[in-house]
Structures are given as structure tokens and as C-alpha cells.
């Protein structure tokens, strides 16, 4: 949009300004009494007007809807004015627990603990309190199950869970597996004076 926007684009900008949460296209269409196609076209116009470097705001598609966010150019000034960091970073334990919930949801706490090898109670409690995960019913055994929230998607810049890369992306390559195996086998070798593991073993590992 040039200096003068279409009325629909103006209405949408105002709606997104007022809404505390991202708004789905269907809800915008209903509120603005327009078709979803018209809404999408007007959003494209708004996106153009709020393109990086133009304004202090940006249009973001997050958590299944659209929302306005401040431009990063204002971050330093915002920190001074609002006197609080927006989102404290996650501790490693919290990040691991969140990753397990994000990929395996719905997932119970015993299951998270089994994967991490250590208790997740404190990390999960913090994630609940920060609104990044929430309960999603109970398993057949009555254990509470957890899933991620729309706030998680919003804060991590995701339109939906499908934006997360496949977890197989972090499957170790044969070389990485080999390295870990070497580390396992050679950890005590230097101490024992046993020498490095034999190449034939290494080959066997890489193949497996």
C-alpha cells in the first residue's frame, strides 16, 4: 500500500493492534465482514507497508494467526523504557524439556524424565508457569499429559508446530555415532594404557 491504505487494510491493522493474541484469517474476515480472500489481499498490502525499514512495527504470522510486533530497531530503547527483558532465556533443562514436549506431545512427565534421565519436575513447573506448555488431558493411567501452547509458537516465531524441523534432523550421522563410540571406548584407554580401539571395531560401528 502506498501512503493511503485501503479501508480494509486499515481496519485489519487496527484489529491486530487491539487484539492481545494473534488472530486467524477466518476471525478477521468475520469481524471485518469481508471474504477470506479479501482479508489475505489486504494483509499482503499491510505486510508491504510494514516491510522492514519502513515503520516501527512489523506484521508477523504466528501461532495460526496474524499479529503486530515491534521492529527490532527499537529493542534497545524498549528495554530502557519498559525496564524488563522481554523473555528470559531458557535454562538447558527447560529447553530440553520443552523440546521433548514440542516433539512428542502429548507427553507425560514420567516419559519426559525417562528420556532426559533426570527429573523434569522443576523445569516442567517453570515452563507451565511461563505458559509455554499446558496440560492436555490424562493418559489411560491417569498421568497428566502436556502439550505446547500458542504462546510457545508466538514467542519462538513459529506459525504452527509444522514449522518445527523434523526431529530426525538431529539424528547423528554415522561419523557422529562413530565419534561418540570412540569417546565411549577410549575414555578409559589412555588411563589403562590399552591403546586406541581397533579399526575393525570402528568399521563395525559405523555400519550399524
Amino acid at each position, binding site marked *: 500500500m502506498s501512503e493511503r491504505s485501503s479501508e480494509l487494510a486499515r481496519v485489519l491493522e487496527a484489529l491486530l493492534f487491539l487484539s492481545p493474541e494473534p488472530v486467524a484469517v477466518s476471525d478477521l474476515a468475520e469481524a471485518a465482514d469481508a471474504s477470506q480472500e479479501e482479508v489475505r489481499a489486504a494483509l499482503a498490502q499491510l505486510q508491504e507497508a510494514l516491510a522492514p525499514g519502513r515503520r516501527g512495527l512489523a506484521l508477523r504470522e504466528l501461532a495460526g494467526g496474524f499479529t503486530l*510486533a515491534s*521492529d527490532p530497531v527499537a529493542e534497545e530503547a524498549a528495554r530502557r523504557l519498559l525496564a524488563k527483558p522481554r*523473555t528470559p532465556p531458557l535454562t538447558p533443562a527447560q*529447553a530440553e524439556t520443552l523440546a521433548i514436549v514440542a516433539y512428542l506431545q502429548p507427553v507425560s512427565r514420567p516419559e519426559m524424565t525417562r528420556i*532426559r534421565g533426570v527429573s523434569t519436575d522443576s523445569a516442567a513447573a517453570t515452563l507451565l508457569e511461563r505458559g509455554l506448555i499446558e496440560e492436555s488431558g490424562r493418559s489411560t493411567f491417569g498421568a497428566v499429559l502436556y502439550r505446547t501452547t500458542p504462546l510457545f509458537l508466538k514467542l519462538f516465531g513459529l506459525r504452527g508446530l509444522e514449522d518445527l524441523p523434523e526431529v530426525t534432523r538431529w*539424528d547423528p550421522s554415522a561419523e557422529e555415532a562413530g565419534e561418540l563410540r570412540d569417546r565411549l*571406548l577410549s*575414555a*578409559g584407554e589412555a588411563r*589403562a594404557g590399552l591403546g586406541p580401539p581397533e579399526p575393525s571395531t570402528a568399521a563395525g560401528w559405523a555400519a550399524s
Partner: protein
Amino acid sequence: MTLAALELDLEVFSGPFDLLLTLVLREEIDLLEVELADVVLAYLDHLEARGELDLEVATEFLVLIAALLELKSRMLLPGQEEDLLDLEPGEAAEELLARMLDAQRYRQAAGYLATLLQDESASRFRSAPLPSWLRRRPLEQAEAVYDPDRLGAALGGLLRRPEPISLGHLTVPRVSVADRLTHLRLLLRSARSVSFDSAVEGADRVTVAVTLFALLELYKQGEATWSQAEPFGPIDIASVAAAAERAPA
């Protein structure tokens, strides 16, 4: 600290934990002879002495010790027909490795999420109450949008109890492994070979289970062997001393 700093003094091994691991993986120490409970106790002592917990190391230790426990429990089950029970050389290491890699996958995914959050940290959202002209929501305008059955169903779910599991055998240990060990040793002394069924004749389920534990212990100690021709078939227990006497003959 690394796990290498964990010094062990066990019956079959004295030295750092990572060396024990290496020797087990190279099959230079028989895992069956390693008292894993002592390793755990040594680790707990170690933690207490240090007075702090390095989560990274603790995680690695727990993953390793859990995998070792699972391996050992499988090795305690004699059997040929099940591939799973038949550990090939190197399979122990493979198993351990698989377990560690699985835990690592989510650690990497966690790193990715942390990066996402970091990238987004300069982008803020407005958090303001609705202007007053939008805040008026008179009670009269409220419409029925929720189904009362949802409440009944939720309460019904809360009335559900887990399957009643008898905890009687936990709170009232009527039979101990030591008792059953004595029982089995007595039987083997007089008969040298005995069927499991006859060893637990007339016993209740708890006693049967405890007797099986006792049998595992005998096998571990090298006092007895056992065989079962087919799944759910009779189990024959033979004293190792008896087998050894027969061999030279």
C-alpha cells in the same frame, strides 16, 4: 568434573568409572560380576562430597547406568531362542550408544529452540488491556457456549482410579529372597536337579516371583543353571556342582 573423576572400589574392579565402562564394553570385565548398586552408591557419595550437581554429567551418568542395568538384567536371563537375549560381542556398546544418542537428539533440539527464542528476543508484542469501550460485557449478553456434560465427564475422569494393584506384598513382605535362596539351595543339595514348579508347589504368586529372583541370584553366583525347552514350558534347575561332577565322568 567428568565421569572420569568418579573413583570406584568394587569387588571386581578398582579405578575410575569410565575405565570400568571401557572394560565392560571390551568385555574384559563380565558385567554380571559388577555390582551396579555399588556404582550408584559410589556416585551418590561422590555427589555428596562435592556438594553440587553438574546436570550435564549427572544426565550422562544416569543414561549410562540405566543402560548398564538393562543390559545386565537381560544377560541374567539364560536363553538361546530369543535374539534379543543373545548379546553379540559389541552389542553392549551398541545398546549403550543408542541410548545416549536418543538423549542427545533432544538436547540438540533444545539448542535449536534456544536459538529460535534468541532470534525472536528483539521482537516484542503489545500487551495492553482492551480500551474501555470494548470492555463492557454485560451478563445479560452472555450466551450458553459450553456443554455442561463437559463438567460431568471431567469429574468422572477424576473419580477414575488406577487399576487396583495389591500393595500387600510391598507393605507386608511375607517372603524374602534370602528365604527362597535357602529353600532352593536345600532342594538342590538333596536333589541336584529340580523343576521350578516343584520348588514353588503350593506357593502364592508373590512367593513364586520371589523364588524367581532367588533363582536369578543363584545363576549369577554360578551355583545353578536353568533351562526351559519352550516358552511357558517347565523350568529345570540344576546345581552347577552336580553338573561339574557329571562332566569328568
